[in-house]
């Protein structure tokens, strides 16, 4: 009984009659998600301010006689003369594992109808990136499950790899494939109870996308049972620009929690072009001076401070960033694409022409690069894919000559044949990531001429047949490949034996 009395007393103590101090202001004008406020003399830069009707704002412009705030949430209820008050808190979002499997808005509030999120910790949305001393170089891979990327443009944990291309070239598909692949690896790793296994959690930040697209993405992740390892931060086209501006920082904060707590996370920003557009809108309404393409002067810092937060920390975890940029008419030299290209550690360039030719994923090998990922690549992938990029480059160069007729020497013809087969081999359907050990086995077969007798048009079918054969009949070999992560003499002999057996079963 006494505990009940204590509880009531505690409640009374919380409601003590002590006066509460508030710093207030009044709305002078509200337009396009931005409120100009009189007063708020104690407000800090980037502080959350409370508007009536539970709307939250962020103080972005501190001027001599007024404060410019972006409003997050519904602005339709706000009017001139409404009272605004400071909160004394910088914008912070809930973080932690309880967010996994949930869809939240830019402030971390659930929007999936699965009930409230009982968050114990909050992290500031804006945070200075980790310094030089605490960082460690990238050495562990992020496996996308896409053969063309894992073999030629490898990504490491803590890396920032840009995915760039025109509309409808498969940018989102690549990241969804990656998230699905990570979920598969997590399931496998956690089931194996290996103490050294490090799961990779995913955060997918939606910025200015259509709600139908987001619903489709969620459905794809649910279908692949990947949502349980994923947080979706949604600031769709229907949300106001302030939400779209804040969403990637909120996603980064959620990812930082995993990194700070010794875990690994992957954050996808889909996409930063729309983020820049939302920020441009806010800046223009706040009457900040505009520069090239009407973007404000700090649009580079907008993205650099976000992407710098991706890191691999010594004795802690890592945060890998996959920003997406949508180009217009394949113009990679536009303002925002060049900015983000210069910030990131490489880019995966998707070409509309390749996409239309049926080469999917439409990765342009010549223009794509990973500056740090090769040090994170597994040894077996290096062994089988080390020469692939060169071979493909040679193929592209020679392909132009192939049009002139049959006067080609045997060596050139062989190179062309090999290139055409590699291109076919890299064709992969959406939402169908391939485990790295299967990729290695298939590429080993390619390097050891097992696909040479097969007609180029039948390579995709043959590769699928080989994958099925390995998955159903050579599980032990695949397990050994995954565990050793390198192809030694024993595995070479076993691969040879398995492929000879496959040759016998494949009828074309």
């Amino acid at each position, binding site marked *: 009984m006494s505990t009940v009395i204590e509880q009531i007393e505690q409640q009374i103590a919380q*409601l003590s*009659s*002590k*006066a509460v101090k*508030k710093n207030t202001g009044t709305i002078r004008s509200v337009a396009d998600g931005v409120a100009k406020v*009189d*007063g708020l*003399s104690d407000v800090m830069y980037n502080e959350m301010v409370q508007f009536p009707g539970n709307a939250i704002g962020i103080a972005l412009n501190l001027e001599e006689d007024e404060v410019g705030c972006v409003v997050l949430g519904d602005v339709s209820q706000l009017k001139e003369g409404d009272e605004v008050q400071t909160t004394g808190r910088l914008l912070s979002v809930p973080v932690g594992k309880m967010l996994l499997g949930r869809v939240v808005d830019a402030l971390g509030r659930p929007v999936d109808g699965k009930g409230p999120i009982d968050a114990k910790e909050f992290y500031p949305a804006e945070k200075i990136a980790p310094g030089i001393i605490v960082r460690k170089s990238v050495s562990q891979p992020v496996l996308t499950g896409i053969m063309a990327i894992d073999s030629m443009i490898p990504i490491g944990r803590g890396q920032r790899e840009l995915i760039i291309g025109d509309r409808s070239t498969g940018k989102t598909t690549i990241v969804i494939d990656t998230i699905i692949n990570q979920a598969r690896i997590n399931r496998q790793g956690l089931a194996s109870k290996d103490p050294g296994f490090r799961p990779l959690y995913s955060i997918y930040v939606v910025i200015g996308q259509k709600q139908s697209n987001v619903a489709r993405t969620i459905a794809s992740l649910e279908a692949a049972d990947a949502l349980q390892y994923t947080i979706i931060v949604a600031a769709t086209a229907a949300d106001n620009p302030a939400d779209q501006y804040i969403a990637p920082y909120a996603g980064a904060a959620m990812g930082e929690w995993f990194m700070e707590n010794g875990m690994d996370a992957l954050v996808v920003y889909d996409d930063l072009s729309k983020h820049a557009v939302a920020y441009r809108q806010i800046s223009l309404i706040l009457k900040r001076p505009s520069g090239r393409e009407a973007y404000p002067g700090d649009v580079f810092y907008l993205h650099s401070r976000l992407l710098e937060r991706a890191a691999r920390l010594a004795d802690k975890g890592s945060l890998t960033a996959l920003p997406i940029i949508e180009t217009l008419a394949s113009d990679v030299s536009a303002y925002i694409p060049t900015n983000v290209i210069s910030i990131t550690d490489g880019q995966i360039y998707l070409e509309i022409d390749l996409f239309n030719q049926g080469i999917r994923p439409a990765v342009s090998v010549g223009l794509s690069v990973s500056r740090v990922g090769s040090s994170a690549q597994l040894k077996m992938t290096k062994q089988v894919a080390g020469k692939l990029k060169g071979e493909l480059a040679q193929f592209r160069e020679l392909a132009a000559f192939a049009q002139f007729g049959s006067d080609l020497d045997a060596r050139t013809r062989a190179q062309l044949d090999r290139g055409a087969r590699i291109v076919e081999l890299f064709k992969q359907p959406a939402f169908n990531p391939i485990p790295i050990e299967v990729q290695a086995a298939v590429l080993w077969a390619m390097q050891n001429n097992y696909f040479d007798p097969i007609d180029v048009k039948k390579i995709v079918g043959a590769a699928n047949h080989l994958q099925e054969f390995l998955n159903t009949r050579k599980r032990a070999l695949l397990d050994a490949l995954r565990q050793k992560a390198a192809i030694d003499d024993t595995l070479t002999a076993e691969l040879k034996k398995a492929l000879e057996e496959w040759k016998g079963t494949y009828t074309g």
Partner: protein
Amino acid sequence: MQVSKQSRQFARQLFRLSLADGQISAERVNSVLIYLNQHPPRQPLAILKHYHRLVATQLAKNHASVEHAGPIADSILQTIERALTQKYQRPVTATAQPNPDLIAGLRITVGDDVYESSIPSHLAALASSV
């Protein structure tokens, strides 16, 4: 009304001229108004409105509006004045304003700062904590 940047700057300049020792001087405000009357600027209405807002904001910093539900003694007002003058390091005068919506307690407004201990504020705190 859209106030131009120049008009706002001019209003701020007039406001600075109206200060004596960091406080609004009635004499200087009077002089400013006479000057404006004799030399009407462009956008006089916008400038005067902005000037009025700046002066009112400054004056509000030296004035405490004490909202109360029941009767309030003069001695309490004087105590409040003394406490606020000491806190802000500037003279603050207090005036009482009855507000039955408070039910019980006080709400004191000094410039942008609001100090409140009243039934509605406690109920609001309780509602947000539940």
